């Protein structure tokens, strides 16, 4: 990515859009305007605004993505059980319909805002901004955003989160990263969930899932977890601790930066 505007001009494609390149073309009766902006610049602008809100309040925002039914809400419930005495947690839930997931989180005594997208297959930065008006950011350390269950669309929309976590449940198949490389490449941590079911499934091999991730140049943590048996939860919680501590004490060069 380009450092100044966040667009995707790289040294691999720059020649196409500079003067004389095939996209700098002007025909006789028309005026060609070079734009060179990210196609989702409106969303990205809102996303960076959201990120400033999070930073101002010292909140670490984590976006959870996966296919439907891979256990995002269950993971959150169990994570809240373990962490709610140490951190102040909030949740934004994204679903096409129903308040069901937000209700499950509220039953844990945690503030949860439900976004119902109607027919939209993903959350975007504007929806998150709306939800932030109802979110007690000043009281939080950690905000989870549970995206709409979908392995394709959520990957294209920056919400302003600091980190992405992508879940892959053992009932889905160990070659998912090869089929959906975009969403797995975006992850800062991949959780292989429902590991308690592994003894029942002879066609999911965690080692193959790891290889599939390596083939898309994924070089960050992968943890096998079960929110039911608590297998791997220590590793996941320790990772969260590290991220929260790093966010609370950013490197010196970032501290001085004005909003």
């Amino acid at each position, binding site marked *: 990515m380009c450092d100044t505007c966040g667009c995707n*001009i790289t040294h*691999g494609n720059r020649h196409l859009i500079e003067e004389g390149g095939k996209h700098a073309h*002007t025909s006789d009766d028309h005026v060609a305007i*070079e*734009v060179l902006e*990210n*196609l989702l*610049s409106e969303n990205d602008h809102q996303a960076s605004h959201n990120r400033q809100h999070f930073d101002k309040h010292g909140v670490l925002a984590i976006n959870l993505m996966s296919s439907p039914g891979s256990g995002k809400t269950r993971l959150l419930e169990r994570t809240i059980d373990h962490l709610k005495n140490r951190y102040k947690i909030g949740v934004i839930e994204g679903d096409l319909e129903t308040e069901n997931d937000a209700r499950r989180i509220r039953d844990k005594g945690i503030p949860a805002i439900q976004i119902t997208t109607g027919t939209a*297959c993903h959350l975007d930065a504007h929806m998150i901004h709306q939800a932030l008006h109802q979110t007690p950011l000043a009281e939080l350390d950690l905000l989870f955003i549970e995206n709409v269950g979908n392995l394709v669309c959520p990957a294209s929309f920056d919400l302003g989160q600091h980190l992405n976590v992508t879940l892959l449940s053992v009932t889905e198949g160990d070659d998912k990263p090869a089929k959906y*490389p975009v969403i797995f490449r975006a992850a800062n941590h991949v959780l292989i969930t429902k590991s308690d079911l592994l003894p029942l499934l002879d066609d999911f091999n965690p080692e193959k899932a790891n290889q599939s991730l390596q083939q898309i140049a994924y070089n960050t943590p992968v943890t096998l977890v079960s929110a039911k048996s608590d297998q791997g939860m220590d590793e996941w919680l320790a990772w969260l601790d590290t991220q929260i501590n790093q966010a609370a004490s950013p490197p010196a060069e970032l501290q001085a930066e004005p909003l």
Partner: protein
Amino acid sequence: MHELSVCQAMLRQVEDIARREQAISVERITIQIGPLSGVVPELLQQAFSIAKCGTMAEAAELVTASQPVRVHCLQCGYESDVQANRLLCAQCGDFRTRLISGDELLLASVELTKN
């Protein structure tokens, strides 16, 4: 299926530019969509044929171009074109690579008609 959202965002951007330039219509929109951008060019074209109605780009052509998926190996330094779900160095096979093209989602240029 999020291509319609992407398309609507693109059209808002394009119309902003056209109004700023005091153009009367948009003739051509050129975008770059890499195989790893998460957007499918064919679906974006379909969405465009619907979403452009009633906009300044109603008669516009949407031109999509794609870059090869290309990685730089962090181990041996070699650059190679690879498949979207196999981002390994073609020279040494290492998985520690950095993507240098193929994830673009970029509005490259617009062509306008002025008075």
